[in-house]
């Protein structure tokens, strides 16, 4: 059976595309799928660092598309998670070296070998974005609950619809305490503007920084709330759409709530 190509995109930079790609890719692989994560951010590669595979790069996606190597030579196998592979980006080229036709050819090959191919799109809506979405079957739009991110996500959603790709939304970096105080847009506010299917809500989590720096996939850290959210997102992608979407709630940090938590009286 042919696999699916899912592009992770946002329009705006720094909202968590790469973290989401790495986490969803790793989580899908943990579910037993053969997964390839592709870094399409040519010139500014990051996905290898987030996955802790930066020391093992020999060939990259530009080499594969431009036929300087085989696909199998560029695929880097993750040692911790079985069935997770990375095709890194080139750090020395710019985004113009790829052509949509070349990407499509490689995408077809990837599709025949993997269950899921997750493409990490660069920020922006120029050529890099075009190359990332050209072969995509599905799209995940990442957005943070702020106005600028929503505006860019909205633009990207319009562009995806124009290519007949129906995107799904992940709202990232929700700080429930701020939402409760009314200082941050809630996911309902975001949905009001974007009105597309919601795939998941991811809370702000300090573990993301630790995970990015150590190259340890977020979804392998059981105590990470963001990691758990990404595992649920992966399950929804992987044929379990009925898993309920959990809205991040504010943690109680008072003295009594800590005691009652310890005693198991509250969660």
């Amino acid at each position, binding site marked *: 059976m042919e696999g699916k190509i899912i592009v992770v995109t946002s329009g705006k930079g720094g909202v968590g595309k790469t973290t989401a790609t790495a986490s969803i890719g790793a989580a899908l692989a943990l579910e037993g799928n053969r997964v390839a994560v592709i870094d399409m951010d040519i010139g500014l590669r990051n996905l290898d660092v987030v996955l802790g595979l930066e020391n093992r790069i020999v060939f990259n996606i530009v080499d594969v598309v431009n036929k300087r190597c085989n696909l199998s030579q560029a695929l880097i196998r993750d040692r911790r998670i079985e069935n997770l592979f990375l095709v890194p980006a080139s750090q020395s080229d710019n985004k113009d070296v790829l052509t949509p036709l070349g990407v499509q050819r490689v995408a077809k090959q990837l599709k025949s070998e993997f269950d899921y191919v997750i493409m990490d799109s660069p920020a922006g809506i120029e050529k890099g974005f075009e190359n990332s979405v050209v072969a995509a079957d599905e799209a995940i739009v990442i957005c943070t609950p702020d*106005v600028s991110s929503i*505006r*860019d996500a*909205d*633009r990207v*959603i*319009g*562009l995806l*619809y124009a290519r007949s790709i129906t995107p799904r939304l992940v709202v990232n970096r929700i700080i429930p305490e701020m939402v409760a105080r009314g200082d941050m847009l809630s996911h309902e506010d975001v949905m009001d*503007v974007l*009105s597309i299917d919601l795939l998941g809500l991811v809370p702000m989590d300090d573990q993301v920084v630790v995970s990015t720096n150590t190259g340890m996939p977020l979804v392998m850290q059981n105590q990470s709330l963001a990691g758990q959210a990404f595992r649920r997102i992966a399950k929804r992608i992987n044929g379990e759409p009925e898993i309920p979407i959990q809205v991040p709630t504010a943690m109680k940090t008072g003295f009594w709530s800590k005691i009652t938590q310890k005693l198991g009286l509250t969660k």
Partner: protein
Amino acid sequence: MEKSLVTNEISAVKLRGVGDGFKLTLDPTMPEEVILKEITALFEPLKHLSVNTKVVLDIGNVQGYDNLIRDIKFLLKSRFDVGGVIQHSEKISGVGKDSGSTINHRSNSNKDNSRGWVTDRSDALILTGRVRSGQKIETQSHLIIAGNVNPGAELTAGGNIIVLGALLGQVYAGYPDDEYAFVMALDFRPTQVQIGGVVSIEINSEFVGKPVFATVKDNKIITEDYIKTQPFGKIQWPTVM
């Protein structure tokens, strides 16, 4: 059978369009039954055009036939809703320009204002769905969006803009210089409004959650609560925009 009738017989009635009405030329010596039948056959396919139009009846330079004329008038008015039927006479047509003005004057007095919309045309682009950031909609006619307009979206219309939803984008009504155009939205929070040559930024949202109506007054864009102001309440007839 129908075909042979048309081709073999000389038709008793001829119809042609004149200005904004019709001219019906007929031979009154033919049997009335045939004439009425032929008029019906001619007007039937033009039903949608005949409402409120004027019809000039030309029976040639003959006298009499008042009954026939009365019956034709009755038929045209009752069945095809024409605005008025007047008889063309050599005398009147001989006067030249005056005849035209006479006809116009009389037909206008016969025009049913309450049904003016049946014949007057209005162009509007009606769209449903969400207009997203970066999307531009441009039309020379009026624009109606049944849906929301997101921040960063742009609407430009030669006429009025009506948004049946939240308007958060940028709108330009009456492009390029029609300052009589208006913008209306159920939830009015645009980033910029331009009507004709007047631009308004920093629209204050004093009518949150209410339908708002924006027009140009004294070279400024004024927003009003649509339900409270009822800007169209004073217009007596359904009138085409």
